[in-house]
């Protein structure tokens, strides 16, 4: 019984604890997924609609997407997609028991973070 009531060390001080990198990738996977639902899907449909419409529709979104603020939104969605994509592949591999050891899981989460940011910059530069 003494074991049950034993005081265990507890640290919930948010200034001294931090989320490990796999945890950061996990919460970003959720946030990016929410962004893709809220902005990504309507944006994708809007863009596809203008591609399937007549050339003047396409002209309108081209000028619209030239706007600096809209470019920032597009860049955010691009990152959301790339992060969600890379993290998703990592989860599929984890499901197949690939890279489930601590060191491997930590490394792959860092790779996901880095690759999605680098690809966002590369594609962003190429598009503009």
């Amino acid at each position, binding site marked *: 019984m003494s074991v049950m009531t034993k005081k265990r060390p507890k640290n919930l001080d948010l200034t001294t604890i931090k989320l490990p990198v796999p945890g950061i990738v996990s919460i970003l996977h*959720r946030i990016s*997924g*929410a962004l*893709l*639902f809220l902005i990504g*899907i*309507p944006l994708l*449909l809007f863009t*596809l*609609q203008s*591609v*399937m419409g007549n*050339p003047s529709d*396409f002209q309108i979104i081209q000028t619209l997407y030239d706007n600096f603020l809209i470019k920032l939104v597009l860049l955010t969605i691009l990152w959301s997609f790339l992060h969600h*994509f890379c993290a*998703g*592949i990592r989860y*599929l591999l984890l*499901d197949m028991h690939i890279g489930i050891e601590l060191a491997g899981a930590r490394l792959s989460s860092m790779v996901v973070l880095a690759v999605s940011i680098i690809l966002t910059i590369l594609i962003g530069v190429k598009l503009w």
Partner: protein
Amino acid sequence: MVKRVIVGAHYGLKDWVIQRVSAVVMALYTIVFCLTALINNKFSYQDLHQIFSNRFVKITTLLFFISLLLHAWIGIRDIFMDYIKPTSLRFLLQVSVIIALSGYGIWALLILWS
């Protein structure tokens, strides 16, 4: 020791499978689309318009959207189940998401075949 009979209820196995299958479908579609567009450098209105006028592309794009809507539904529902505790609010939000996603599906269908 809790003896839980796990036959009958599937504890979300179906959703778990749908989430992964839809992810693979979308990933394959995206990779093939991006690679062909990048290799052939087809980004102009004429190129894209022509690509999406092809019936095979239309059908695979619709399959992509079906996967997307199922995937989005399971993902958003999981977020609501984790953070939205009042049942009435969660119900309202979930119904709104289902209506929105159904609308997006109809929109995609109309874009592709009209």
